[in-house]
């Protein structure tokens, strides 16, 4: 087992190198002088001198890569053109918003998707199955931004004065403020990495309000997360539902399931205890693979619902032509994607001995 994990971690190192290399190449092939291309009108001689010094623009290209690689590994992703602040700092502040949204969306997609898939598979060709599959097909075909806007319209405009009304924008209702954990717990003197980690979790409002027991605030935060989470989660949900259905149908046709039925087990027990255990393996993989869909969805959704996370940061960087931020987000997202897929692979190997032995 340990050997498998070590081998899997080692094999992702070249990919990590490749990711940084690809972003480096993309940053270098921008037409024109890299400094003026990056900073546009703000490219004063001083800024360009600092830029050249940072990237060693007068050195050979491979040496430039080594410099770039060194700074990225140390967590230095450059300074935002628009904000004049280190990209790492901006992202550390905003990443928790995206992580929180992704986790809620993932939970929604997995719970609803697997349930629908099981219902479909156990009632094959029933009206419930057919309508679920039609909805799943529509789900994967609807653009995230259209779904987000339509949800906002339905729940914030059409249902405005009903109990079902939901806020279309922001993380909390205006006037509600959520104190950082460092303040609540009197840890303001904390510095460096521990403080960074504390601030990260503190900025995930669901976590923050949950551990400090601020129930009214928690409810407010969750109400703001419902619509964006549905928008982000719908495409993965549809994929998970289809995968669960086909995988469970395949498993339920196997001999050992017939044996389980023959020895008189209740149908529920056959499906849940015997069928699902094996049917879930491919579903776990699909959930890992749809992380890309979650992240792409988050980019499009955060701008619609005005949540200041990675997606909105990227969106603003695109319209402000803030190349340094775009590169920073690209690297962080790709690395996150790599790490999650690593975790999925390892958990898959834990669940299924055949994989680590092959």
């Amino acid at each position, binding site marked *: 087992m340990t050997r498998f994990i070590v081998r899997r971690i080692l094999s992702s190192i*070249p*990919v990590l190198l*490749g*990711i940084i*290399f*690809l*972003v480096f190449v*993309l*940053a270098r*092939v*921008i037409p024109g002088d890299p400094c003026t291309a990056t900073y546009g009108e703000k490219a004063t001689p001083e800024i360009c001198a600092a830029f050249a010094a940072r990237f060693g623009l007068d050195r050979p290209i491979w040496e430039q890569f080594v410099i770039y690689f060194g700074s990225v590994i140390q967590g230095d992703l450059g300074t935002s053109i628009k904000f004049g602040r280190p990209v790492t700092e901006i992202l550390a502040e905003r990443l928790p918003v995206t992580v929180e949204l992704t986790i809620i969306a993932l939970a929604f997609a997995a719970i609803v998707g697997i349930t629908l898939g099981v219902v479909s598979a156990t009632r094959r060709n029933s009206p419930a199955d057919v309508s679920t599959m039609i909805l799943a*097909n*529509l789900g*994967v*075909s*609807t*653009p*995230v*931004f*259209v779904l987000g*806007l*339509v949800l*906002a*319209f339905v729940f*914030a*405009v059409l249902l405005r004065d009903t109990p079902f009304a939901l806020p279309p924008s922001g993380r909390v209702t205006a006037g509600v403020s959520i104190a950082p954990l460092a303040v609540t717990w009197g840890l303001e003197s904390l510095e460096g990495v521990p403080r960074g980690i504390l601030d990260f979790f503190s900025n995930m409002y669901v976590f923050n309000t949950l551990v400090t027991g601020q129930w009214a605030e928690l409810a407010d935060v969750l109400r703001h997360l419902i619509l964006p989470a549905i928008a982000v989660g719908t495409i993965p949900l549809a994929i998970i539902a289809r995968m669960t259905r086909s995988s469970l149908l395949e498993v339920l046709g196997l001999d050992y399931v017939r044996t389980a039925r023959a020895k008189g087990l209740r149908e529920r027990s056959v499906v849940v205890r015997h069928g699902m255990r094996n049917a879930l393996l491919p579903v776990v993989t699909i959930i890992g693979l749809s*992380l*890309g*869909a979650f*992240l*792409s969805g988050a*980019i*499009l959704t955060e*701008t619609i619902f005005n949540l200041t996370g990675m997606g909105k940061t*990227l*969106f603003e960087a*695109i*319209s402000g*032509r803030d*190349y340094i931020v*775009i*590169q920073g*987000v*690209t690297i962080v*997202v*790709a690395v996150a*994607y*790599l790490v999650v*897929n690593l975790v999925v692979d390892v958990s898959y190997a834990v669940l299924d001995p055949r994989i680590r032995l092959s």
Partner: protein
Amino acid sequence: MSLSGTPDARAPLALGAETTVTPKATSLRKETARNVLRQKSAVVGLVILTFLTVVAIFAPVIAPFDPDVSMLDLGIPGTRGDPPCIHLLGCPVDQPQHIMGLDSNLRDEFSRVLFGARVSLLVGIVTVGFGIVIGTTIGAIAGFAGGASDNILMRLMDVMLSFPSLILAIAIVTVLGPGLVNGMLAIGIVSIPIYARVMRGSVLSVRESDFVTASRAMGESSRGILARRILPNALTPLIVQGTLGIGGAILEVAALSFVGIGALPPLAEWGAMIAGDRNLFFSAPHLILFPGIAITLAVLSFNLIGDGLRDALDPRLNR
């Protein structure tokens, strides 16, 4: 059928070496078509696609207005984001008819949605075509050459796959500069690894088979083996993957347009139309709804056909 047990004495005469080859090739195609048509969802997909294709081809004939011209320039009264006005459904006859209302620039939304079908169908097909051509070339080289070039090419593909596709596409477009063509190029580039993997897999699976060895022994060139022996074997998964890929490409190019770096105004592209009228959404939701439904229909049609093709071509499912 004719081989087994037909007492007809003339039947064996039809079994000459030349005649068996051709009927078999066409029958596979026919059988696939029959299998696809047997699936309700694939038929629905085909119907939607046919409808969209007709709309795209005849857009200039069907559209009541030029998609890029404002009502202001035509001297027709109207305000930004006017709701749909259909005379048949009780809209007063003295008001100008706009089936899908007016957009934020006083253009006829219906005409723009119609012309958008041209853009999106073209975008999907061209983008995937580009990805398939480059991807299969890379996959064929990697699979055929093996060794170091295989390793380098496929590791490069791995790196590209380790980005969420929309993020990589955004990074590429920021380098190339915004625009529909660059957006398509970016989405096409991002899709290359998928086709490269499919092609490489097919090459590896038949490279050592007897019929390839036989053609090599008969002096056929590598290129000939690739084109005449290996490519036909790889075609099935490529067609399935490509059909599903068209839906994905339409969605992703629309997303690029939505974030402002794909199709640029005033081009009538569905994603760009939604982005342009987003601010009017709460007062004029039809401006999001109609292009949104159009994108969904286009993507849905390719997804349904792709699923249908996959099921029809999967020998395990053949009854």
